[in-house]
């Protein structure tokens, strides 16, 4: 495997004692089964080589064998933390391909579901980031709140994690009575916990010391690496598909795009990336409140499409703003009920590729934080 090693010349000519450490695939803070081959000079990281594929579950192969409806459970298992968000670009792509308009109620429910799931995802992201820094308690505060969100999602869809809820042209089930009150309570609870965690973790001096000025990602590098989501916004680029390419009904809501401000540290470091997530939770809360207020009570959510979905021959690329970044589905239909090819452009996959670039020269402990701040899910990286 000598060709995997790609040392820069200047490094390899230096005479010094370097140690190659294998971080992962089973390591407490690689967020799954990522393996990083790290070369350290004392404590300073000189090279990082990521090795992927420890969770390669052949998603794209399965897509070719399944009907369009059967693909949805597999899509849940891509980014299993935000399964609702995952399904959305897929069904949107098919709706675009088949030229289906969905009703307003469906759109509102989808928005609420996606934003709830976005909050849940960011809670995990911030929590595990704190865990990487050694703070265990905020992790459990966030998970306590996430549980309430999960209960709503479970009441809606029937499952706790992998929902299989979105359908082409509709949804699997209607809202339950009391849904709106539950959502508003969640919003309250999320805000309360966020305020608490701000004090406990985010503005803690030790945490700032650890995460500010670490893993700086400049906007140019971020765009060239096609980073998206909070990673891109943490670098100060105001780019959010919900605003820049408003899909569904996001143009009806009033919300801001939080970007890294450099309030602490510099723009593009781990702290700012993390802060973008915390701020996005607040924006999601705002969207949920508005959507609850605007949502029509009447209307059917069941899809009015034939049981066997047969889109016309064609290709479509649909992308949506996922909590982790841009998730795109490139669907090639050959006119039958099984897709010819589905390519998932995972946000984590692309965001992770920036790791070797931004972690050189920092300490080994920083590498863990940089990895945590990028918020990857290996299901989406390896597919």
């Amino acid at each position, binding site marked *: 495997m000598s060709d995997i090693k790609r040392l820069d010349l200047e490094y390899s000519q230096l005479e010094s004692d370097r140690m190659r450490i294998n971080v992962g695939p089973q390591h*407490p803070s690689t967020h799954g089964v990522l393996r990083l081959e790290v070369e350290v000079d004392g404590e300073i990281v000189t090279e990082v080589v990521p090795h992927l594929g420890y969770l390669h579950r052949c998603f794209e192969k399965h897509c070719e064998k399944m009907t369009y409806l059967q693909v949805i459970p597999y899509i849940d298992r891509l980014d299993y933390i935000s399964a609702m968000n995952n399904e959305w670009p897929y069904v949107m792509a098919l709706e675009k391909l088949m030229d289906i308009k969905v009703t307003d109620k469906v759109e509102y429910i989808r928005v609420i579901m996606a934003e709830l799931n976005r909050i849940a995802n960011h809670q995990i992201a911030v929590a595990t980031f704190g865990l990487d820094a050694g703070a265990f308690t905020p992790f*459990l*505060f966030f998970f306590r709140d996430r549980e309430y969100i999960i209960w709503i999602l479970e009441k809606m869809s029937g499952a706790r994690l992998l929902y299989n809820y979105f359908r082409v042209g509709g949804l699997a089930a209607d809202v339950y009575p009391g849904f709106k009150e539950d959502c508003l309570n969640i919003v309250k609870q999320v805000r309360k916990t966020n305020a608490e965690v701000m004090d406990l973790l985010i503005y803690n001096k*030790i945490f700032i*010391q650890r995460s500010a000025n670490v893993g700086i990602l400049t906007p140019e590098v971020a765009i060239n690496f096609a980073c998206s989501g909070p990673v891109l916004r943490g670098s100060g680029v105001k780019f959010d598909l919900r605003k820049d390419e408003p899909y569904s009904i996001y143009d009806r809501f009033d919300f801001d795009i939080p970007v890294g401000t450099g309030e602490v540290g510099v723009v593009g470091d781990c702290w700012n990336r993390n802060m973008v997530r915390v701020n996005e939770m607040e924006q999601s809360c705002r969207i949920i409140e508005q959507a609850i207020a605007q949502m029509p009570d009447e209307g059917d959510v069941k899809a009015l499409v034939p049981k066997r979905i047969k889109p016309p021959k064609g290709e479509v690329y649909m992308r949506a703003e996922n909590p982790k970044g841009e998730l795109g589905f490139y669907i090639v239909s050959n006119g039958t009920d099984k897709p010819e090819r589905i390519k998932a452009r995972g946000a984590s996959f692309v965001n992770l590729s920036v790791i070797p670039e931004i972690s050189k020269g920092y300490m080994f*402990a920083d590498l863990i934080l940089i990895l945590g701040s990028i918020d990857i899910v290996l299901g989406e990286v390896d597919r």
Partner: protein
Amino acid sequence: MENVNFLYDLLGKNVISVLLIVSLPLMFVLVYALIAILAELKVSAWIQERLGPMRTGPWGILQPIAEVVKLIQKEDITPDRSSKLLYNLAPFIIFTGAYAAFAVIPFSEYFVPAGINLGLFYIFAVGSISAIGIVMGGWASNNKYSLMGAMRSVAQLISYEIPAAMAVLSIVVLASTMNMQEINKIQSGWFWNWFIFGGPGTLAKLWVIPFTLGLGLIYFISSLAETNRVPFDIPEGESELVAGFHTEYSGMKFAMFFFAEYANMFVVAAVLTTIFLGGWNSPFGDFMQGPFWGVFWFVSKAFTVVLVQIWIRWTLPRFRVDQLMYIGWKVLLPLSFICFMAVSLYVMLK
């Protein structure tokens, strides 16, 4: 010092009584460690709105006993490519270092296993033994994570020894003795006679109180670092170094590390209690003062300090290794010098 040991009076100075006196702290360490483990589990759980162990005995109070029973039965692995002698010796050395410190800890007016005159000096000397054990264990394991953990741990122990020693030295200057029993006796009376509040003295001591408070804080922070507790737990920081220097240890040897960690926590808490918090003295003058109340006060004070350590552990994130050094050398050390000079000035003026 008269150093009355009531057991010697009771039984005479023979082999049995010596053994008894030696083993009493051991019993104490074992029982205390079990309670501390339970406290750690329970406090962490309650802070996080959980319940902690619930299904082993009522409210899970038998949990640590189950852990010990289990650890006895576990297979004891010696990695194939480790340095066998050092690997097997390391846990014992660490535990010895932690346990040896108990020799001079004054539990009560009448009970201190060895009331030597250089008590504080002895504690610092013995406390450094564990560094040898850690580096032995980390190096002999033949594991990169262990090695890195050991190196970090030793660097940390050595750096934080100095501010801690400065803090203790200030109190030595204030008390003009290194005998821990003597230091305790000086602090008798109400709680404002404790050295954390400047020790006994007239109102003129008011200006030195901030400095002694600072010294107490400096010693407490250094003691956190010396026992590898959060926020200074980088030698065994889970998220970076899997389990640090004891990654490769299993079974009883790991239990030794575990016990040594909690014993160390108690040692530093005991030193803090002795030199800053009045040791076995009742905080309320003569109220509840006496040899047996002394044990109660001493243990409860020390255990409160341990609880605070646990409390901090579940609140803070951990430092990075360079920040740790920065705090040790550039923050705590200068501050401890300033406090030391202030205290010296106070003693001179007194």
